């Protein structure tokens, strides 16, 4: 299934760029960590951004979700610039317009109940019951624990709760940051199954992972990021070997 997608998607006549990073530069304070990165992600595709720790993958997602201002270049979603350089973050507006970032590790509010966590998702426009329906049917274990503080859930359940936002808020662009981190393979499988469902619905998805193997089943295109720059774009299976080199060498 994925193999077919990988070859047909780019040539599909309806395909146009959903997300473009155009020579993007970004910094924390005055330390620049993204040094002019460019990427194009077609509408309806699942794109994997791979790379070692500290490469700047999470930062790319933050920039795209409006949590971090740019210091140079441009990010366009459906052709519209997200923010001009040095403009303040606009994450709440983007979230309401259908950009959904599930950040790495801390995608939930630990001191809010499961239900209140779901209620927070209503900020993006859906009603509580709509969201609860989707979340509890996809992850029944959440339904059993709806009154529990989210911080007391197991790691896998927390990630399910975080993923519920992706499933329930009907996003146009989904950004997933290291969904698999610290989780048992069986749970990772579950989560990526949900990602696959969204992909089938035509949601454009950008997944960040450290290892290519995790996303082989879902992604139809991939890029490697090293030291704040995109070093290679191509087929996920091809890139697996390149990635090993990147890890071993540390540099380009």
């Amino acid at each position: 299934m994925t193999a077919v997608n990988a070859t047909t998607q780019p040539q599909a006549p309806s395909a146009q760029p959903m997300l473009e990073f155009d020579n993007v530069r970004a910094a924390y304070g005055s330390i620049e960590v993204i040094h002019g990165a460019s990427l194009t992600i077609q509408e309806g595709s699942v794109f994997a951004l791979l790379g070692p720790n500290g490469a700047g993958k999470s930062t790319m997602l933050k920039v795209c979700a409006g949590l971090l201002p740019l210091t140079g270049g441009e990010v366009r979603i459906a052709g519209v610039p997200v923010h001009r350089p040095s403009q303040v973050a606009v994450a709440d507006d983007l979230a309401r317009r259908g950009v959904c970032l599930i950040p790495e590790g801390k995608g939930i509010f630990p001191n809010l109940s499961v239900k209140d966590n779901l209620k927070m998702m209503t900020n993006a426009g859906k009603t509580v019951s709509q969201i609860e329906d989707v979340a509890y049917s996809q992850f029944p274990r959440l339904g059993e624990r709806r009154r529990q503080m989210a911080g007391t859930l197991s790691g896998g359940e927390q990630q399910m709760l975080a993923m519920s936002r992706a499933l329930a808020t009907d996003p146009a662009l989904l950004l997933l940051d290291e969904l698999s981190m610290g989780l048992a393979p069986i749970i990772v499988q579950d989560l990526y199954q949900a990602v696959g469902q969204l992909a089938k619905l035509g949601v454009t998805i950008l997944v960040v992972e450290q290892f290519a193997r995790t996303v082989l089943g879902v992604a139809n295109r991939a890029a490697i990021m090293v030291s704040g720059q995109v070093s290679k774009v191509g087929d996920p299976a091809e890139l697996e070997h390149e990635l090993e080199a990147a890890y071993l060498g540390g540099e380009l």
Partner: protein
Amino acid sequence: MADFLSFTVIGVAVGAIYAIAASGLVVTYATSGIFNFAHGAVGMFAAFLYWQFRWDWNFPAPLAIFLVIFVFCPIFGALLERFVMRGLQNTMEITKLVVPIALLLLLTGSASWIWGDPIPETLRRFFGPDKKITIGDTFISWHHIIVLIVAVLMAAGLYVVLYKMRIGVNMRAVVDNPELTQLNGGRPVLAASFSWMIGTALAGLAGVLIGSLQNAAINNLALTLLIVDAYAAAIFGKLRSLTLTFVGAIVVGLSISYWNWLSDTGQKWTWLSGFRISIPVVLLVIVLILLPHERLRGAVVSRFKERFSVPTIPKAALWAGVLVLFFAAAVPIAQRKPEALLSTGLAFGIIALSLVLLTGYGGELNLAPLTFAGIGAVVAYQFEVNITKGHINESLSIWGLLLAAAVCALVGAIIALPALRLRGLYQGLVTFGFAIFVTNMVFKQRRTLHFNLPWYGDGEDFEINIFTGGGLFVPRPNWFGIDFRISNSNYMVFLAVVFALIGLGLVALRRSTYGRRLAAMKDSPAASATLGMSLVKMKLSVFALSSAIAGVGGVLYAAQQGASDENSWVITASLPLVLLTVVAGVGYVSGAFAGGILTGVFFVMLGDVFLKLSVDYSAFEWLFTDVVKDFFIFVGPAFAAISLATSPAGFLNDMFDNYRPLTSRRGLPLLSAWVVFQGLFYLWRITDGIGTWTFMLVSLGVALLLPAIAQVIRPDLYIDAKTLKQRREELPLELVGVDRPITAQDVKQADAALQLPVGVSDNDGRS
């Protein structure tokens, strides 16, 4: 039994008001991390506004309440969040502490400015003072019933807002994780704004309820402190849990009420009459001491980091000499009033020196230096009255002064005990509570206490009558053959000498081993503990020594005033001194001087200038006196603090920076020229060639313009100075990133310091 019931109802009602106030505090603290010291003052202001609408303009009560609680308070809260609190998000912890305190002073000052001071107005109970219902033989006033109903409604409303409505879920989410809130599409700014609107509305509600409950004249400071009583409840809820806050509030209310019952509303044990109003602060301190340590750690921790070198002892001695010379030179030309003001300023400066040691050098916090000063004054006074059997006309004995210092040192060490395990906000609250306790129990003590001590006197009782007449008379000294009682000028110079000596002593202390340990303790308590220093000993000694200095300052201040009353030593008098000293630079002796002069002289003088203007331009008298002058006196200090609190090292140092090049070798000719000019000009004034005003204005103008003049004549001095200044502003590496963001420059410097080859950690190296 009937008594018990009605006291219980009253206690619960008062507790309910505290619950309202405290939950407002918790809501704002939880969402912004800022402890709103001004919460009580907001409530006070709302109560005055309510009085204005309801009793001065005779609006119907519901309209008045609506205007205050649902219009004024939310708008004020939103503005507060937008223009003050939002800007505090990424500032140093000390600024977060100081700015709300300045706001407190601004509000109490504004209330005095608008409604007059001290003209308290009567705020009557709802439905009148005598409307009550009877259950069996228990009377309950309607006001109490209303209070209870309102509190229950408020609790229910707050529950619905926070737990049922989306905005409430958003508010709690922001506390957990602001970024994720945004990713969910929530608006943190809106949530913050909303929580400040709720917080101020609750403060206002509490203010109106408790203000009217008094059914008496409302005094702005007293009312502010009444709401401050709710702080104990908020701390009991660890500034987070609303349920525990409610429990704490009811406990506080019941404690007060049952104490009233036991003590026959203060008829019994009259010397303990001040205890009733002290109960909340006593509970506050107990809760602070007993609360598990870890719970407090995540909260505001304030550290005063030192970034500048301490002057060498010869340099400090030079400055000490200049200071004394300055005041000696002022003697022939200053008139009575400025002399008195300058003396007051100097005495405040001596008290502020205690803050330089404690806060500037040691990193500990004391919001109530004047309380220790007051204790010193009381001890000296008692010594004169009881030991030397002296009268007002006799002179201050050195033994009295030393005893005052010793007693203050002891009290300071005792206060240090709870402060041992607390820092920042919580330490500030302990000293705050202590100040209120001492004011109620000691400074307002009107009873004469008799003790029959076998070794004392000829069988007479040893009497302690602290403020029987409402006043305290401490005589001035008559030492070294100079009588400071007759001549104000002499006393002013004497104070300058004392200030210079203590200041010099502090610099020497800071340069000693003890001082270096103190600095180490301030920068990293944990690290210095691992180095084998006894933190307990250090903290106790620095508190004791600093309190002794405050005590000495207090004795000299009381002696300067002649007679002083309890109002000289209250917390609201301490706060401006603390603020202005911090603002001027609490790490420096010069900061204490400026803090003292600003508190004692500057704003009063400004007021006087406008008074003079109002005489000269009598058509605008109303403008100059009622508006502008009062404004400076009441509101000025707070404004100064709010606007200046952003200069963390103190504005004085920024100012001094411009003069520094003049003291270099190459700048010396210019400096000497100025000294000669000033000397000649002074001679001209002495020989009555010119008047005092001209002399003052021209001297001040030239002194202020000196750096600008120097920059034109000798620009080369300033080119060096710039690089010098930059070098001095370099933070120790470990503080980079804590105090300001890391820059590329820092990375290069770190590389150099670690002797890494260029570009190893340079992110830009590749592109």
